[in-house]
């Protein structure tokens, strides 16, 4: 499904035309159309939403300024005077407040950090001195900016120093500045544009989620099947060996951020695992990998199998291999997979991994940190399936437990992430920011619950969302979202049970659901078609709430309140609590 172009508003005291050009022309997704705010009028543009540039309201806002233009204290220090840090703090506070005010209306805000041109670095020892140091002054301003904007929703401070360092000596351009009021060289804006696009993809849940790795000459040097684990190049007093260790560390840090690791390697499986187990300098171990195919089959097929096993789309996968023939084969067979060119010099592996701008995340939840472990539990779960004679018997052995609670401040970040990432079991495929989701959920007649799933193998965390729009005698299911990690374990039926129970207790006569087709959510349609709900017309489903919808016998349903049955959140009083939350007493406690 092609999405429409995002509209970005760029506000600055300098000419951001070049950034606008790069953002609009970059062929990568998402497509962007840019509007420039009134030149030089930063405060006015931020505070006056009646200006034409705010109509229609943009999807995202970039506020990029020079510190000396928006902070008089910095200008003062550049002119050779001193400035008290308290004064800088006050000025930054005012600037941040103006940005925070915009966060009420715009979905996403990017604020690059402040930098000063290198021509001002001539202060020597005074550069970092209290009061008079230019660099110190800007550092203080940036730290205060971070502190101020930490709590502003959907607002992200971007590290502009990174773009400047990437470009190096010519990053600041005096000629562009004096001729066109453009302080930076073209390459700085190009780097900024790429970073901003990657950030937008991350916010929209389009980050890559899985790295599939070759083994020989990728995780270690040499062919383990030929030289044995004792002789592979890994660690030791060897520049290449150290580089392989660092590369494994970098991969492990990605895993800590929730990116899954897998192996697709042409090797004898037992030989490969022996190396992981026995080599003393191995950083990655078997438990770090969510899936693997270590065999002599076609790698493209193996990677497709791994993605299917992990219920991930191919567009969530990155494949790293030192062998150009294998890379070309996978590119040709599976074009959705990102297959980066890979350097011959092993010492550049870490740099190559970090230069991939496909793993951006807007925030990190507990689920992200535990995702790799959850997949390990899933493997054990699937293995246990082999010993059960039927699906029901297997589900009974799992000791499935589903916990339900209303959407609230504590679960909103993860729920928003799930809403935006879930493709397959997703009824309407709404994509909302935290602020939009929160705002929708607190409107009168709207009710939203989240579901946590666990069993004897482990905790899958927050993996389901149900939202309902009540209108007279009808409850319309708006969001019916379930993570692919728990599909097919009767959690779908459990969520429907909750929807119908809530309707019954609210004296609503029918529950309806309207399926909205996307290229990826056919499993959701298939579930509703066999769910027992009546199909009224194509993709319109209904249940008469005079009748209960049975809770699957294998499921234990509980509420998040200690000792309380799950029904506590389905009582009409609970509906009031959800709605009162709008006023600050319910699940949303900070409104």
């Amino acid at each position, binding site marked *: 499904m092609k999405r429409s172009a995002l509209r970005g508003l760029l506000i600055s005291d300098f000419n951001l*035309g070049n950034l606008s050009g790069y953002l609009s022309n970059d062929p990568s997704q998402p497509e962007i159309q840019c509007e420039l705010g009134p030149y030089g009028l930063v405060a006015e543009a931020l505070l006056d939403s009646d200006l034409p540039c705010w109509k229609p309201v943009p999807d995202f806002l970039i506020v990029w300024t020079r510190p000396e233009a928006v902070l008089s204290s910095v200008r003062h220090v550049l002119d050779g005077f001193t400035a008290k840090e308290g004064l800088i703090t006050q000025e930054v506070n005012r600037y941040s407040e103006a940005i925070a005010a915009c966060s009420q209306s715009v979905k996403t805000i990017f604020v690059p950090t402040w930098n000063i041109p290198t021509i001002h670095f001539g202060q020597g020892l005074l550069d970092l001195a209290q009061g008079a140091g230019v660099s110190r002054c800007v550092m203080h301003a940036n730290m205060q900016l971070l502190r101020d904007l930490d709590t502003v929703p959907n607002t992200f401070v971007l590290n502009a120093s990174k773009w400047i360092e990437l470009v190096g000596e010519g990053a600041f351009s005096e*000629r*562009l500045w004096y001729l066109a009021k453009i302080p930076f060289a*073209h390459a700085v804006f190009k780097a900024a544009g790429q970073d901003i696009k990657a950030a937008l993809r991350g916010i929209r849940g389009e980050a890559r989620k899985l790295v599939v790795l070759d083994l020989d000459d990728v995780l270690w040097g040499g062919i383990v099947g030929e030289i044995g684990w004792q002789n592979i190049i890994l660690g030791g007093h060897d520049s290449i060996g150290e580089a392989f260790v660092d590369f494994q560390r970098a991969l492990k840090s990605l895993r800590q951020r929730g990116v899954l690791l897998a192996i697709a390697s042409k090797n004898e499986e037992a030989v490969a695992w022996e190396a992981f187990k026995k080599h003393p300098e191995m950083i990655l171990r078997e438990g770090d990998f969510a899936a693997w195919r270590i065999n002599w089959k076609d790698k493209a097929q193996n990677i497709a199998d791994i993605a299917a096993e992990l219920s991930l789309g191919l567009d969530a996968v990155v494949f790293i291999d030192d062998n150009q023939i294998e890379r070309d084969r996978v590119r040709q067979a599976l074009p959705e997979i990102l297959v980066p060119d890979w350097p011959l010099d092993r010492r550049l592996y870490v740099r190559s991994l970090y230069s991939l701008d496909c793993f951006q995340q807007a925030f990190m939840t507990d689920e992200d940190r535990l995702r790799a472990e959850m997949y390990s539990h899933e493997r054990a779960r699937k293995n246990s399936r082999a010993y059960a004679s039927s699906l029901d018997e297997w589900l009974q052995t799992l000791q499935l437990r589903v916990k339900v609670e209303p959407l609230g401040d504590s679960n909103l970040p993860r729920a928003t992430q799930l809403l935006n990432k879930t493709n397959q079991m997703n009824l309407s495929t709404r994509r909302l920011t935290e602020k939009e989701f929160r705002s929708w959920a607190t409107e009168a007649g709207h009710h939203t619950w989240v579901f946590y799933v666990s069993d004897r193998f482990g905790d899958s965390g927050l993996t389901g969302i149900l939202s309902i729009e009540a209108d007279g005698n009808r409850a319309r299911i708006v969001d019916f979202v379930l993570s692919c990690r728990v599909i097919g374990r009767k959690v779908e039926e459990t969520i429907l049970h909750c929807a119908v129970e809530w309707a019954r207790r609210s004296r609503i006569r029918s529950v309806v659901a309207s399926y909205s087709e996307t290229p990826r959510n056919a499993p959701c349609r298939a579930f509703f078609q066999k769910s027992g709900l009546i199909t009224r017309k194509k993709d319109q489903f209904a249940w008469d709430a005079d009748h209960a919808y049975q809770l699957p016998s294998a499921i234990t349903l509980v509420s998040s309140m200690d000792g309380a049955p799950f029904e506590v959140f389905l009582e009409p009083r609970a509906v009031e609590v959800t709605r009162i939350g709008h006023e600050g007493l319910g699940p949303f406690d900070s409104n």
Partner: protein
Amino acid sequence: MKPSRENITDVVFSSIDELNEMLGSNQRLEKSLHSRLLGQPNGLDSLGFINLVILIEEKYFERFGYRIVLTQTSDKRLEGAAFESVGNLVKFIDSSCPS
């Protein structure tokens, strides 16, 4: 050694490529010596023109190791036909280069 006119043309064309990465599809400059540089029809706007000139200055330095300055308004020749077309600009750079 003084760069040949062919080398200078290469530098200008590669600068046009880079410039076009920033321009909308209906604003892009065709890579031809006959392309009009400034004004209507099909010429660059002032920001596009400045970007192109700076790109040429930078690429010239990268390629040949010494700087040319096309943006000194005191050079009277710039008020003439030098910036009318890509071809004229190439000739101007060629005539400005030290032998």
